[in-house]
């Protein structure tokens, strides 16, 4: 046998490719493992069963105007005499726009044609509350109390609930965005702590609990038993995949966000069947009301470094054709700087798509910096158009109306 049957390949196939203890040989190629997975999933109608969407959340309201800087617009410098990014420092991508100087990683991705920028994303009647606005982006239903997340509903509508771990959320708690009616997202923060506590004897007993796969008459108990089996299997898998993952790619300064993306890369590399990954900054990191210069610069640098590294890493492991990334924040910030060298809560803000199959360009109408709504940008692109683009053009599910509870045109942003 000539394949490089590494431990992770074995793990991947044993646990996730073809099922445990089936007695099948372990030398199946990755392609055939994927086909088997597809067959098991019973979703042969899927156009792109191998495709993965990674969603990144910049919590706290990222200042879009100092991220994608409208350096060609004098109104920008009038509104931001102290915190505006000087035109000579902007990493220019066009006569009007460019990146904050700390985002060398994004400049490279854009020049490589691996990055789409969508101007002016938002929704009607925007909320300036972190909590409300974030819940609107999470649910994809602004100004309402929808209980499930848009990624959760996407999975409910299109992914087989009998297949485990189709959604992974790296974080200490489950994001509303992945809350699902049928799926149980795999949520963990520190893979090393995703484990059963106890002595070896105790763990031995607990690992075997609920092992009879016979269905009881209690569907909630079946759900719990299945989740328990999944937890037992997945926690070992996740811990080992993460612990054994080595990459020469530099994700930048060791921070939680880059660390989260590296965990995603490790799981993709290990053959996890996950289709939807979710990684968020913790605790309103981007809420830059005061003295935002340094802190915002650092955050943007971490972010750009981490995303660039992730895409390079994914290419390195041969999965560039299968992975796309979407990045959002719950709102942008006020056009005019405030009196504390920071910015207050605002409205419209750019969204980003990354990946080999993204058609690198600027999309949408840039919002005017002078025709404002109470000091805030008027949104030009409903953010759900970008969601629809990811759902339809990338993941290949034509019916976006049901998931998004409305009709949203896509952007033609993927090849």
């Amino acid at each position, binding site marked *: 046998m000539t394949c490089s049957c590494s431990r992770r390949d074995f793990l991947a196939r044993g646990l996730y490719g073809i099922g445990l203890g089936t007695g099948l040989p372990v030398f199946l190629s990755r392609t055939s493992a994927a086909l088997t997975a597809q067959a098991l999933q019973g979703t042969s109608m899927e156009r792109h069963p191998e495709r993965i969407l990674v969603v990144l959340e910049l919590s706290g309201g990222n200042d879009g105007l100092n991220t994608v800087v409208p350096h060609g617009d004098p109104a920008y410098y009038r509104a931001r005499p102290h915190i505006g990014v000087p035109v000579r420092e902007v990493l220019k991508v066009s006569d009007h726009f460019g990146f904050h100087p700390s985002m060398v990683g994004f400049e490279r991705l854009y020049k490589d044609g691996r990055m789409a920028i969508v101007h002016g994303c938002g929704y009607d009647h925007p909320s300036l509350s972190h909590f409300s606005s974030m819940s609107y982006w999470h649910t994809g239903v602004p100004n309402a109390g929808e209980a499930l997340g848009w990624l959760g509903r996407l999975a409910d509508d299109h992914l087989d609930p009998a297949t485990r771990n189709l959604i992974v959320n790296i974080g200490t708690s489950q994001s509303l965005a992945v809350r699902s009616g049928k799926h149980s997202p795999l949520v963990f923060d520190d893979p090393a702590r995703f484990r059963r506590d106890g002595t070896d004897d105790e763990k031995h007993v607990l690992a075997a609990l609920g092992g*009879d796969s016979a269905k009881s008459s209690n569907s*909630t108990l079946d759900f719990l038993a299945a989740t328990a089996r999944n937890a037992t299997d997945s926690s070992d898998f996740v811990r080992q995949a993460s612990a054994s993952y080595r990459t020469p790619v530099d994700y930048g300064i060791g921070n939680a966000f880059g660390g989260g993306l590296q965990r995603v890369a490790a799981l993709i590399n290990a053959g996890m069947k996950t289709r939807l990954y979710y990684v968020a900054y913790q605790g309103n990191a981007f809420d830059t009301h005061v003295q935002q210069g340094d802190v915002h610069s650092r955050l943007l640098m971490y972010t750009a470094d981490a995303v660039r590294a992730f895409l390079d890493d994914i290419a390195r492991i041969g999965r560039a054709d299968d992975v796309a990334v979407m990045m959002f924040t719950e709102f942008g910030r006020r056009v005019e700087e405030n009196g504390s060298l920071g910015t207050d809560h605002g409205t419209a803000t750019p969204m980003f798509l990354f990946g080999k199959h993204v058609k690198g360009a600027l999309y949408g109408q840039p919002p005017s910096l002078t025709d404002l709504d109470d000091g805030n940008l008027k949104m030009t692109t409903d953010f759900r158009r970008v969601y629809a683009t990811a759902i339809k053009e990338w993941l290949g599910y034509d019916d976006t109306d049901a998931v998004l509870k409305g009709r949203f045109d896509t952007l033609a942003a993927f090849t």
Partner: protein
Amino acid sequence: MSRSSRRFLCCLAAAAGLGAAAAAAPTWTDDLSPIAAADWNAERAAHLVERAGFGGTPEEIQHLALLTPQQAVDSLVDYQKIDNSAAPAFEASGVWDAGMDPFPPSRAEAVRLGREHGEALGVKVLPDGSPRRLQPVVDKFFYGLRANSIETQRLGVWWANRMLTTKRPLEEKLTLFWHGHFATGDAKVRDARMMLRQNEMLRRHAEGRLRDLLVGILEDPAMLVYLDNGENVKKHPNENFGRELLELFTMGVGRYTERDVREAARAFTGWTNDVLQFKVDKEQHDFGDKTFLGRTGPLDGTDIIDTILNQDATGEFVAAKIYKYFVRDEISPAVKAELGRGFKTSRYEVRSTLKRIFLSKDFYSPASMATQIKSPVVLVISTYKKVGLRELPTVPDFGRLTGGLGQTLFDPPNVAGWAGGRTWITPATLLQRGNLFRDVLFADAKNFRAPDRLMPGTYARVGENIAKGMNITEATKEGTGDAESNAQVDRDEDYNTRYASYRGYLMAFERTKPIPRRVADLSLTSMIAAAHANTAEAIVDHFAKRFLSVPLSAKDRAAFVEFMRGKSVTSEPALRELLYLVLSAPEYQLS
């Protein structure tokens, strides 16, 4: 009796019980008629006390089983008749000094107030020319945030202890229901006093009339702040309040128009609060005519509530939510319509609708029994109850335990409350749901770090540096990577944020009462002795009966028995290990 014959009898008993339940299956589901006294038994009494409270000990269940179903339900629902005066009131630390109200919404605002007035939050800025003139104001601002956060933690512990020790369990279970229904979070409100007042208001009306709850919540300072109704003014009505009232609190989406939302918002303009006091700001109230759900006139907030209560949708929506909380996730259209009709006809009396539910055959049908996933708060409190605790253990910390599972009292995730049901469960939380009881049963008081006295490392280092004799600029430098930017911040500002945060923690620790720390006071050896269980099998069966709502599979039971075999049945550590295993079983998540 030989081991095998005992097991045989046990199986017979289980089979008989299951047989009865199975026979009920086809006819009882969705049947709201009351069950007969002849159908009342210990299994159903246990189910009642699980759902209408936080579960019970075998003795408590036996007591209910000896009553008629009507008496049993009345004894739980008519809780106003039970003297609960021994339940301790919350003892506030008194962290709010004169001048701290109204608390500025941001540090920037506190700084602005300090600059303009020479004082803010009850403290004066330093004289002109002093270094860091605004430091006292910013210190006080951070003190306010930290102290409030600790008070809210204390509030959570107080409430949890009340859930455990109350003589009126349904009162607390209902208050928790309304807390999720009228979800309000301290992360935004930032005022534990307001959160306590809301909690008391919800408890006061919990089994009473929906109208009192609605008026109470719409005049509630915490809710007014949470939904930004302070910004709901005549010229720019803010729809947040009106929308949530219709969508989440009363009618449910799709039963009203966008115009109704706007008109409701107008009716609530000027409804605001002066810190802890509700007030109507007449200057900001729109006295003009509104048309809301077909009614036209110069409607105010109370008129809106009364119009809403005239809608059939309101009875159905709220009754269905009560049903979902107490019975099961799915409600049939017929049951929803019938419960809604009854709720509305009773002038929205919660008590009578609850009695109807708890007496119904549907409530005791297999679709309802042992099919609900316990919320994190219910999981922890009911476990403490079933092991016989009379006081809430605080090592490990209650808030951390439930928070790690997705439920923090006084901090629901958003205005929609906790989604509940299967959303509680992820593979990681399911493992955690077991792990946490290991932390309770083998509590490590020595290495315990109290979250109400925990300073994050960044600020603890500031304190260490100051103690070493460094000045504030040096002491607040964070490693080499951040040094330049921090130096810049220090140079440019008339206060030091990191130092203020450190000072804020210190002052908050000094001025808030500490949460008393104690491990669970329990003896499984006594419990097992009282149950006369002296074999591995008998102990496993006792734990299963006491803690689980569904029978263990033969395989899992055998695994537990095997684990216990060879261990001393009077060994407290061995019994605790076994209990940890039982509480980690998937079955234990079911109520």
